[in-house]
């Protein structure tokens, strides 16, 4: 029941917003739908806390410890982003960058995007997961090009081409997986159901499955933003509207990574050796290091944080690649805190660039003077994302680092160099934006600050105390991620 609600609300919301056209209250409606989704997700979460994992709709949908918190997180961030996008889009409209038709597109696509991501997470069917993932690309590609500037068109084109091609590889991987599963489960519906696949994972044909994993990793990895498949990511983040950058970084990357991890579980079962783990560690480390070095060369603020997302996805991928209860736990936690922190950062970044009329970091100065809350949000968010305690990002990085140190000591220098370089790069750029003499001006609408500080408070909380049921989910999920 709750599951259908979780999926139904955004779907209906998307259609509704598309059909009604842009009304004055569209932004509120958007937020309301997201709130409803969030409430549904909260109900679902409560149900899972009470009853444990479940399946629905002829096993087509399922919820287990791995996806339950992602569903909740997705719904939460989608809701807070909707809250943020309300004033943000108003201001954009006020500045004449968007018109009513575009806003209509924006709002309906926003809901559909939420739907697609939730479908990805909830789908038990690996094929449907793929479909939803492609759907998420399709819904966001129009959002990235929302401003119709040459740069945004270019970014959207690259996003579209690279992700479509990437996702096509994932489809081939899915087909190969099905090919392998069919031989065990027989043709028909069940051979693509994850729960069934999981049950028979040890009997799957290793060669096929490893081949499938290569395609899946490459396909979904493109959406995760793994280096060298990441090239769409900074462009899309920088040129799209900021709420979209927030959900791309905060949610889409997570969902894509979720798909990778789901595949990894099956492959590990079939292969028995750490083939997938090695690949993921390699990609994770490469992404981490390369992104860290990219950071210092950025001029555009959103682009910089986009690279930071690549870096963090690298960390998570590396963590899952290492495997083991602690590392997987850390990976899950890092997914959570990264999406909360990064979306909070994008909220502040959005307002900051509206205030200064530019995304060029050299022209953003002294935010803390004109708008202390945005300035503090940005600096605290940046520090949090850089792994400063007591924020939660540190917690997961602590676990990743310590695990890496005794399981893969060779990797630690890379991790450390990357973290150090990233720190110098990001903080060196954020500090002058936040402090110093100001260039900011007043905004025509009050900025949305609740989402920023709500997220940061959650991240802070996770740095000091993780609720027991969350721990339990993480543990269970970590146990089968292995």
């Amino acid at each position, binding site marked *: 029941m709750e599951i259908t609600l979780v999926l139904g609300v955004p779907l209906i919301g998307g259609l509704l917003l598309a059909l009604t056209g842009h009304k004055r209250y569209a932004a509120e409606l958007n937020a309301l739908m997201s709130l409803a989704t969030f409430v549904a997700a909260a109900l679902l979460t409560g149900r899972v806390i009470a009853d444990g994992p479940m399946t629905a709709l002829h096993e087509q949908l399922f919820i287990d410890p791995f996806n339950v918190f992602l569903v909740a997180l997705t719904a939460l961030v989608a809701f807070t982003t909707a809250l943020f996008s309300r004033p943000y889009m108003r201001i954009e409209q006020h500045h004449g960058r968007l018109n009513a038709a575009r806003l209509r597109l924006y709002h309906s696509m926003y809901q559909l995007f939420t739907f697609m991501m939730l479908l990805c997470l909830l789908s038990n069917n690996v094929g449907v997961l793929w479909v939803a993932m492609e759907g998420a690309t399709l819904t966001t590609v129009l959002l990235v090009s929302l401003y119709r500037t040459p740069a945004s068109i270019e970014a959207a084109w690259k996003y579209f081409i690279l992700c479509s091609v990437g996702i096509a590889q994932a489809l081939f991987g899915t087909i190969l997986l099905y090919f392998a599963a069919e031989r065990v489960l027989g043709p028909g519906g069940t051979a693509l159901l994850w729960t069934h696949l999981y049950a028979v994972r040890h009997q799957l044909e290793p060669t096929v499955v490893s081949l499938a994993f290569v395609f899946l990793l490459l396909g979904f990895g493109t959406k995760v933003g793994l280096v060298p*498949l990441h*090239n769409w990511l900074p462009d899309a983040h920088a040129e799209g509207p900021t709420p979209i950058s927030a959900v791309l970084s905060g949610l889409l990357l997570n969902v894509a990574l979720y798909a990778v991890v789901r595949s990894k579980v099956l492959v590990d079962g079939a292969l028995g050796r750490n083939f997938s783990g090695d690949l993921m560690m390699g990609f994770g480390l490469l992404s981490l290091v390369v992104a860290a070095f990219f950071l210092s060369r950025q001029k555009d603020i959103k682009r910089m944080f986009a690279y930071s997302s690549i870096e963090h996805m690298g960390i998570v991928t590396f963590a899952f690649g290492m495997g083991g209860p602690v590392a997987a736990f850390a990976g899950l936690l890092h997914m959570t805190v990264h999406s909360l922190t990064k979306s909070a950062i994008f909220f502040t970044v959005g307002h900051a660039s509206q205030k200064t009329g530019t995304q060029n970091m050299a022209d953003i100065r002294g935010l803390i003077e004109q708008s*202390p809350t945005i300035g503090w949000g940005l600096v605290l968010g940046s520090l949090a994302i850089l792994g400063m305690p007591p924020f939660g990002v540190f917690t997961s990085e602590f676990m990743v680092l310590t695990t890496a140190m005794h399981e893969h000591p060779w990797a630690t220098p890379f991790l450390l160099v990357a973290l150090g370089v990233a*720190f110098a790069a990001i*903080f060196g750029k954020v500090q002058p934006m936040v402090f*110093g003499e100001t260039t900011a001006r007043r905004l025509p609408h009050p900025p949305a600050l609740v989402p920023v500080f709500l997220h940061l408070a959650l991240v802070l909380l996770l740095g000091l105390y*993780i609720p027991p049921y969350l721990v339990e989910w993480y543990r269970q999920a970590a146990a089968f991620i292995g």
Partner: protein
Amino acid sequence: MTGLLPSPLGGSLAVAVCWLLIAALALLPARNSLFARRIAFPLGALAGLALAALGLRAVWLPPESLVLPLGLPNLPFHLRIDPLAGFFLTLLGAVSAGISTYAAGYFRDEGARRVALIALQYHVFVASMAFVMLADDAYLFMVAWETMALSSYFLVITDHKLPSTRSAGFLYLLIAHLGAIAILLCFGVMSGGRGDYTFDALRAAHLSPQWATVAFLLAFFGFGAKAGMIPLHAWLPEAHPAAPSPVSAMMSGVMIKTAIYGMVRVIYDLIGGVRWEWGMLVLAVGAGTMLFGVLYALMQHDLKRLLAYHSVENIGIILLGLGMSLVFIGSGHPVAGALALIAALYHTLNHAVFKGLLFLGSGSILHATGLRNLNDMGGLIRKLPKTALYFLVGALAISALPPLNGFVSEWLTFQAALQAPILENGVVRSLVPLFAATLALAGALTAMCFVKVYGIAFLGKPREAQHAPAGATGHDARGMELYGMAWLAAGCCMLGLFPSAVLLMLNRVSASLTGQGLSAEALKSSWLWLVPTATQQASYAPIIFLAVIVAVTLLAYLLVRRFYHGRVRFADPWDCGFAEQSPRMQDTADAFGQPIRHVFGPLYLMDRRLPGPEDPAPRFSLKIEDRHWYWLYLPVARLAEFVSAKIALLQQGRVSIYLLYSFLTLLALLVFVR
């Protein structure tokens, strides 16, 4: 009776939480800053006093520990208090009591929002330091450690409109973070793969000598970055002066001591199995740090920067003590090792007190005159007599002059060095006294430097026509500011005059850490005498010393008055009869350092501007730069820049190339999977 008193651990925790509460409260009534302005800091100071008392008690009680239901699922926050932590908590509490009191007066006239923010950050800062000392697992330690760095960073950039402040803050946080990464790595090495990060587990782990050395190096690097040892000191002379003076006092006085705490905790307590080679490294770095610090301090004309360089120097002295202790313990002479450790810890305490005092004094000067540049000062003793008095106490103490406290710890360090003959290894045996020689050199240079500071700032006449900058109050420190300085000045005297009490306390710390304290003879001597080993070998009685010196001075005075007279006439200065005297003809700070520049010329990177002969308003300017920038920091930055420039070639904007990356990756993986 003891049951009625709070347990040291619970009490300390309560104090730390109290600080956090003050911080939180400071934020709430932002508009009406009565709380932040009038109540927060005095309350914080009271809490500090309580903490000092609790810490003192903890030194004499067996260790206590506690687990809080916070933190990681596998690793909740562990707290523990033992004599070492007790000692450092005492240091934190006592010094912060003085500084907070001072801050209560200092920040009275700041803007409401600013003072609220400072009160918030300041108290988070103090509380995090308390947690650093209470932490008993790696995670809580790191959280507290980085919170400390973060809150102090925000305090440093309080005046963020100045570009120099911003770059100082950035450099500070960057080096702090790199250090923290090294510390984290050190914990990782120590846990040796078992994944248990409570200090108990780390203590129990037996590392092979190689891994122990790796852990030691990481800890030394990580904590050294925070302590400001060379070559990681670059942030310190930038960041400490940039902060408001009470914060500088807190950072120089207490914060860099947490690094010493960390070093002692990790090396002695957690790693264990000390080796003398480590000690030699610490000695060498310590001596280098010390000399570097003082030589650069002599070149400074910014008062707070100068004090910051002296912090570098004093960290070197502390490291010298620690190094000797490691050498002795590592060579199987725990008693001598205990003496050196005690000397190091004593100096840690002393430096906290007198450097806190000196920074507060510089704050009062800044408040009254708006000046930081010594070259513009002069004759302040007439304008700020009270500040001048307290500053003199601090200056004499840091110059290691008897009978104040700086002397006692340097004396103990020398005594430790004089134990060198018991070492078996001939090279080490002759090197240890050599390091003592560098200490003697540094001590004398410090005295020179503080003659310069005091002589130029407080004595003589104002050097430049006074154009009091905006915000200068023009009057001497008063009220809370004075009490704060008086408290620390009293500390300088007490620690100098009653060293045997401190010695007993530190003996307990050392005994709990290394299992070995001082010799029995040293401990049973009376409270008047400070005896490190045996009365025959060395002793020092500051009270008697002071009594005699005061008595003879008084006697001389009385005799002169009795037999002759006290007639005085006042006149213009004579100055060998030179008639054309102007205050600008006095030595400036730069001039005072000139002989040292001459002697140690190659050490400095100088940029000197001499006025031309036709110059109507001649000005001499001098800029001394740190060579470390050029051989260490900039090359590293350039390397990172180079690598990132190369990596940036990956992204040239062409979608075909991007597709090609994907394609090649795919092919490579497919080859790999076969």
